[in-house]
């Protein structure tokens, strides 16, 4: 028995359809994985986004206190950033309650603090340093304690 007759007799058509389906499904799966790979790489480069993904599912109406906590949670301080923040907190002790931000930056620079500009920016972004509305700034000790200590 040869040719089409043999194929019919041994379920050849069904087997070939199954084979084609398996290969095609595999290729589709592979292409989907490759197309989404950039998302995984983005998370790999910036792990703080993982937290943001989970936060997104929470209800929108949040209290002010909760929003403040969220800002702190989203801010992932590295060890060196924490160290920088602690050094800034020491400088703040030498200043008035409502202090000048350029003056603080100047003090940080003459004290030879590493990455003083970036560290100051982190403190502003996490609301540890906030504007008082008159051109000066205040230090939020409670927020600092929660985020850094």
């Amino acid at each position, binding site marked *: 028995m040869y040719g089409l007759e043999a194929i019919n007799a041994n379920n050849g058509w069904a087997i070939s359809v199954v084979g084609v389906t398996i290969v095609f499904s595999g290729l589709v799966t592979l292409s989907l994985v490759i197309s989404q790979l950039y998302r995984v790489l983005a998370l790999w480069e910036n792990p703080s986004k993982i937290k943001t993904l989970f936060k997104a599912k929470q209800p929108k109406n949040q209290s002010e206190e909760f929003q403040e906590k969220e800002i702190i949670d989203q801010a992932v301080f590295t060890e060196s950033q924490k160290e920088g923040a602690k050094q800034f907190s020491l400088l703040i002790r030498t200043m008035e309650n409502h202090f000048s931000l*350029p003056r603080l930056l100047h003090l940080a620079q003459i004290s030879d603090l590493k990455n003083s*500009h970036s560290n100051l920016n982190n403190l502003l972004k996490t609301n540890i340093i906030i*504007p008082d*509305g008159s*051109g000066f700034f205040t230090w939020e000790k409670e927020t600092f304690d929660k985020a850094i200590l």
Partner: protein
Amino acid sequence: MSNIKEILNKSSIFSSLGEDDIQRLEPFFEKREIHPGDIIAKADDAAQFFFLLNNGTVLLAMEEGRSVVLNTPGDFIGLELLSAKGVYKTTLTVLEKGSVFAVPRQAFLAVIQENSEAAATIMASWQEYLDKTAPFVKIVKKIEGISLSYNF
């Protein structure tokens, strides 16, 4: 990152301008990368540029220790917030990496002076922006008794 047209349309100062006015302003803006620690304008230097923030964070240091932190794309750093009579009155220090669009001061003022309607729109938006971003700038002006509004 956005292009200049996007950022002009996003800016609270320029978004109310007509399409023609935005097209006239576009060619004057030049993109510059900024890095932490860069000083992009220094008090008492000749004021050559105004700046439009694309991204990043900039500290604008004024007289008497006052300052403003600018970190919203579309924030305009110019006019009396930055200069008076052709001289920078404030110092701009970069806190976070990003980019700004620099526009030559003379060219910018010439373009808005050519078109009184556009100038009025920009100045109205500018006052609102200033009230929101740095309300104490007015207080300083009152204390000094000087009107800087048309002496940028």
